[in-house]
């Protein structure tokens, strides 16, 4: 009777379609189907709620309170001061110079980053394959440098004594340097003392680190534009400048819109680079970010006042973000 086992193994199982019955989709782990996305979202929502939204609300509340050392240690509850934290801004020079620095910096750095990045993106598109990859890897280096290290690098390049920028300016013929800047000897020029020159260095630093992202995004956008369009423009004898404004720009408008808003948001919040370039002792060089945290954490801490400054910054960013979201959902096709 050696046959029986073979028969039962070969014949019995495989001809039976039993185990292939599809599972009813309604029951999975005992959860109704409609609830599954919500269950999946729970951890993410908890993190966002507890660590981003709740602190955001708290920050808005603290902005109307006095929170000093005794309140931080929990010996006394925070006291309500109404609008005092905000009204004190009115005749506070540092607040106004921080606001001005924040806005002026963004107004200069954002267009520069976008224009340079777009130009490099168009260049990358027109370069040969190997050359394009070579340049992309090059700009990746600038993009990859951590913000703190960016600050460190540019602080070194603009160093008063041994910085390479002063060395380069000394190379200019004396008559030219004198005619342009009124001086011939640049050794010892302290670039990181005055607010205006600190911000000049900051603009260079942020544009240098920020243009690669724009360039690579524009390149990705350009790759989606049908080559025939450029072919047609060339046949019609259109100048490159015209081709850019008539073909590239309208087609990449959504890309530019998002890049602009992202750059505005990033540049309004710039912190690490400024912290390294200027330090906390030069109050004239504060922007809103720096002013908010130094006000809140320097001795003696004034958390309420810091939160009020941070709230001003947040409201500005919220307005910009509203524009960003409108653009994002215009493109949303899923």
């Amino acid at each position, binding site marked *: 009777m050696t046959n029986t086992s073979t028969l039962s193994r070969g014949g019995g199982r495989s001809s039976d379609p039993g185990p292939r019955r599809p599972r009813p989709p309604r029951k*999975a782990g005992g959860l109704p189907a409609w609830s*599954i*996305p*919500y269950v999946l*979202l729970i*951890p*993410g*929502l908890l*993190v*966002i709620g507890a*660590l*981003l939204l709740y*602190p*955001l609300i*708290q*920050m808005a509340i*603290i902005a109307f309170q006095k929170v000093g050392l005794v309140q931080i240690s929990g010996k006394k509850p925070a006291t309500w001061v109404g609008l005092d934290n905000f009204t004190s801004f009115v005749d506070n020079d540092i607040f106004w110079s921080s606001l001005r620095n924040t806005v002026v910096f963004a107004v200069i750095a954002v267009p520069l980053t976008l224009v340079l990045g777009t130009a490099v993106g168009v*260049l990358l598109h027109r370069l040969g394959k190997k050359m*394009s990859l*070579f340049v992309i890897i*090059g*700009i*990746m*280096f*600038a*993009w990859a*440098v*951590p913000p*703190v*290290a960016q600050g460190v*690098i540019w602080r*070194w390049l603009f160093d008063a*004594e*041994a910085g390479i920028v*002063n*060395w380069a300016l000394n190379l200019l013929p004396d008559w030219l340097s004198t005619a342009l800047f009124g001086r011939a000897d640049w050794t010892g020029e302290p670039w990181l003392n005055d607010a205006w020159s600190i911000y000049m260095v900051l603009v260079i630093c942020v544009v*240098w680190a920020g243009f690669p992202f724009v360039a690579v*995004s524009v390149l990705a*956008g350009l790759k989606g534009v049908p080559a025939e369009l450029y072919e047609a423009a060339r046949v019609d004898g259109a100048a490159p400048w015209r081709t850019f404004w008539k073909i590239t720009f309208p087609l990449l408008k959504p890309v530019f819109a*998002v890049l602009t808003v992202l750059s505005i948001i990033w540049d*309004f*919040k710039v912190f*690490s680079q400024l*912290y*390294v370039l200027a*330090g906390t002792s030069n109050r004239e060089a504060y922007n809103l*970010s720096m002013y*908010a*945290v130094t006000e809140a*954490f320097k001795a003696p801490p004034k958390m309420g006042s810091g*939160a009020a400054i941070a709230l001003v*910054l947040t409201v500005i*960013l919220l307005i910009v*973000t509203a524009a*960003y*979201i409108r653009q994002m*959902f215009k*493109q*949303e096709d*899923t």
Partner: protein
Amino acid sequence: MTPLARKRLDKVTLNTLGVLVFVVATFPVYWMVSTAFKANDQIFTTDFIPFPTHFTFEHVQRVLSEGVAGHSIWLYMRNSAIVALGTILIGAVFALLSATAVARFRFKGRTPFLALLLVVQMIPAEALVIPLFLSVKRLGLYDQLLGLIVTQVALTLPFGIWMLRTFVAAVPKSLEEAAWIDGAGRFTTFWKVLFPLVAPGLVATSIFSFITAWNELIMSLYLISDPTKYTMPVALQYFFGQKGTDWGAIMASSTMMTIPVVIFFLVVQRRMVSGLVAGAVKG
């Protein structure tokens, strides 16, 4: 000029511009690295010394042994690595769950959730650090790397979900349906079908979060005061508080901090770009 000659000239101009862009982008980085290996008499000079003629490891050795703020740079590198790795381990799980929800299901509240992801990315860390400092203090997480990890997860998660959902959406739904018909359960389908296909996207997203956490300064600056818990960005800026700026040591340290990020960038170069652009531009 003949059209051919003109074309060649164009090519020369374009390639020259390309080289110029390359030099502008890389020179500051090169200058940091070369300064790290120059002897002090070649650093503190008003002359231009294009590369270290007396190549030296003295600065690297010094930051590894003496370091800054009384501890070796290794300690700060380790702290930063712990924070960044902890952030991506927790963040990856959370991001994958949320990304699956928004990419695979149509449900009430999906669009508001997507909008929420964008809004919370705007919140400046400078605004969060004040209330988080108070909470962290109350919870006994002040001066703890765990406290930093928790805040970094929060800072990186919204973008992580946003980026990862495009990778989840790219996996054809028919694959899951096939597994479904073959009798696989929800969990098996997720683990055996969706997960392996999304894994490359998860790596790219995690690398992005790693870099964000590795670079972050504000939280580390104000949620940590114990020098043994400093992260690299805090240690790096600490150099400037000292008397006389030791540029060799600073450049050696910032080079060490930059290397992992550059490696990650080059490794995931293509995916990084497509992921960022897909996540940030195409939606």
